[in-house]
């Protein structure tokens, strides 16, 4: 099935099997391997990307459902100085160890930054509860995101 979408500002068009998930389209067809698969059931958040500006699980979306939409992955953050600032704050504050969850946290946080009305920084732990990290104990991630949103 023909699928047309825009990824990190670049249009893409291709013939994809309907069963292909958006995550596998990004990883295997577009070589954007910064989007990670941690559970493929919508729980861990490692595959989070922005779809028309909203954070979604790319493992819970078929590629054909993304037809006509605009996607942002971790590889697209260089174009956004604000996102790059959070990324640098996470690195500086040791908000990552193995790094597998990091792209998902970054994209979730980016969606929060764009939320209208703005999110209350006190709710950051709750708002990041849709992303699992097994290394850091969350404290440094919460602190970096809170400071960045603040």
């Amino acid at each position, binding site marked *: 099935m023909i699928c047309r979408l825009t990824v990190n500002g670049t249009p893409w068009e291709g013939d994809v099997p309907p069963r292909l998930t958006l995550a596998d389209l990004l990883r295997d067809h577009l070589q954007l391997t*910064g*989007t*990670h698969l941690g559970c493929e059931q919508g729980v861990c958040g490692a595959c989070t990307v922005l779809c028309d500006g909203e954070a979604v699980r790319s493992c819970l979306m078929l590629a054909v459902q993304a037809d006509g939409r605009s996607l942002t992955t971790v590889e697209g953050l260089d174009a956004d100085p604000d996102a790059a600032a959070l990324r640098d704050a996470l690195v500086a504050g040791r908000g990552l160890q*193995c*790094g597998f969850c990091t792209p998902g946290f970054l994209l979730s946080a980016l969606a929060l930054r764009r939320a209208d009305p703005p999110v209350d920084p006190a709710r*950051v732990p709750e708002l990041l509860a849709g992303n699992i990290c097994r290394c850091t*104990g969350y404290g440094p991630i919460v602190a970096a995101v809170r400071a960045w949103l603040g």
Partner: protein
Amino acid sequence: MARLDAGTAARLARGGGRYLADLRVPGCLEAAFVRSPLPHARVGAARFHDGRGLTAADLGLHPLVATGPGLAGAPWIPLGGGRARYVGEPLAVVWAADRYQAEDLVDAAQLELEPLPPDEPLHSQAPTGVLFETTLEGGDVDAALRAADLVLEGRFHCARQTPFPLETRGVLAHPDPGTGVLTVWTSTQIPDLVRAGLARCLGLPEARLRVRVPQVGGGFGVKAHLFAEEVAVAALALRLGQPVRWIEDRQEHLAASAHAHDAVVRLRVGVTREGRILGVDADLTADVGAYSIWPFSASLEPMTAASSLFGAYAVGALRCRTRARSSARCPVGAQRGVGVTVGVHATERMVDRIARRLSIDPLELRRRNAVPACPWTSPIGRALDSGDYPRLLATLAAAAGYDALRAEQHRARAAGRLLGVGLALFNEHSGTGTQDYRRRGIDTIPGWDQSRVRVPADGRIEVATSAADAGQGHADTYRLLAAEVLGVAPERVEVVEGDTDRCPPGTGTFTSRGAVGVLESLVQALRAAAATDLAPGTDIVRRADAEQVYPSGAHLAVVEVDPVGWRPRVLRYVAVEDCGTIIHPEVVAGQVRGGVAMGIGNVLLEEHAYDADGQIQTATLLDYLVPLATDIPEVELHHLTSPSPRTTLGSKGVGEAGTIGAFGAVANAVADAVAPLGAELDTLPYSPQRIFAAVERARAGLPPARPGQ
């Protein structure tokens, strides 16, 4: 020491980590596994679509046997060798162009399975199901219990849990027809042991195998084993003469990687009226699942848990009969802290029970029994190298404001709140060496570590170790250390890990080896290199065979239980750590925080369950619950520094301490919160359901529930 060169972290945060699933090899096929739907069955004829499937017999895989004192010698058999021994066990491998099509082949595969009766032994070498058994004993336990004013009994059960790194397992095997060498990329903590095990399973010389480790997305112990999928994918790549990979999915990971814990500890403890612990009589049974896992063997959990009982306390006599039983469940292996978590949970819960029974404050009871000074040798021969237990307690009490906390708790209880304060005092062994492994009945693990400093023609300094980073950040620590010792710029130093061609062989990364044996060998190699002119051609290898060292700690948790839904929440966490000399403060802080989070998950949330038919009920993340950002408080971290006399730098390792401490502190805090209701908790995790049931039993005047209820 200077701040971290954050180059690796920055690359990872850009999505530039090359984890196993990100490696791209042209023409690589994708494997998937046909797994057992039954807990125990004989495997008969197999039929595969288009002939694209192979069983253990087709691939000619050899079993491995972990040997050592106390072990029954039951084999570990990749792809089951004609038997299925747990639900989810891989029995055959199929391959296709991608994972989607490979799963279609799994669906199409037909395996004849003849169910075997539940009482049929899994292994003929262990007809009663006991895979390992021994007794640790020191001092006159019977006399100590006779002399006691009071003998208290307890039975503590830790659920079956799993390390759960965010990246699942994966392997990519790539044959080179020119050299005849098979390169096996695998997400592992133990590249050299994987190579040794693969060579034996495949019947190949080790020289024909190169094991390489890409970026690893967390290990926490589960990636410190050899797995059937690694063996099968390697064998398949050789058979087809083509690269083949397999990426584990989360369902496979939860059902069939390695589980942990699942042990019952029974304690009889003799105390005086003043609260002196005179002697401990313990009995421990670990359910280790279907196999004696390789390389650690079935002794890993029961031996580690038994030897850690009352480890921070000056107890005159201790006996523990300890054993591993098989069951038709996923094999049990290593998880951060291994059995020390189980041992510390039982010990610390028991210490609190003694305090309650004698109406002595739990902190005071710990003061009266803590190891008074080091060095100290326990009745079962644990030779504590360093540490200051009284000072750990004093530091914790001051840092947490212990007296004020108890006063606050008093007021909260008067207002009807269920607020608990829990303590843990503990130590652990780390950096286990050759002699330690032999004593503990494990012959399969070398126990020594190596490092190599090499200067190639281009003048770079290559530092290679036998460790394998799984996200802890070795490379940055080692680079800075090398730069400091050699007096060169960090940029000149390249740290190499996880490549059996480029690194000297050793034991890998677990039990904080990276801060003990590996670091020791590195320090020695660097010092030897520093004495030279670092001319191109310099090539220095040093081996270290560590003696065990004992990091220690004292933790405190404050927990509130919601009186409507019985949900426990950790409100505050204070940790005092003594990991000896701190090589890198930020790495240490990261290890402790992350470790505490895992411990909180283990105590409050995490549990694998099987139903009566042997089917796993927790193969998705809707049912196996790991902690989220809302479950973990800030960790207030304080340090004591008692350098180990057994390592050159004095470091002792800190990878496991956070988790171990939480097993005691959080569990005691939950129990303390509901103690006014008469509820007794002894089975992890302390879930809303278990708290509810304990309170109901207390209300009905019934004794505590047996584990499993």
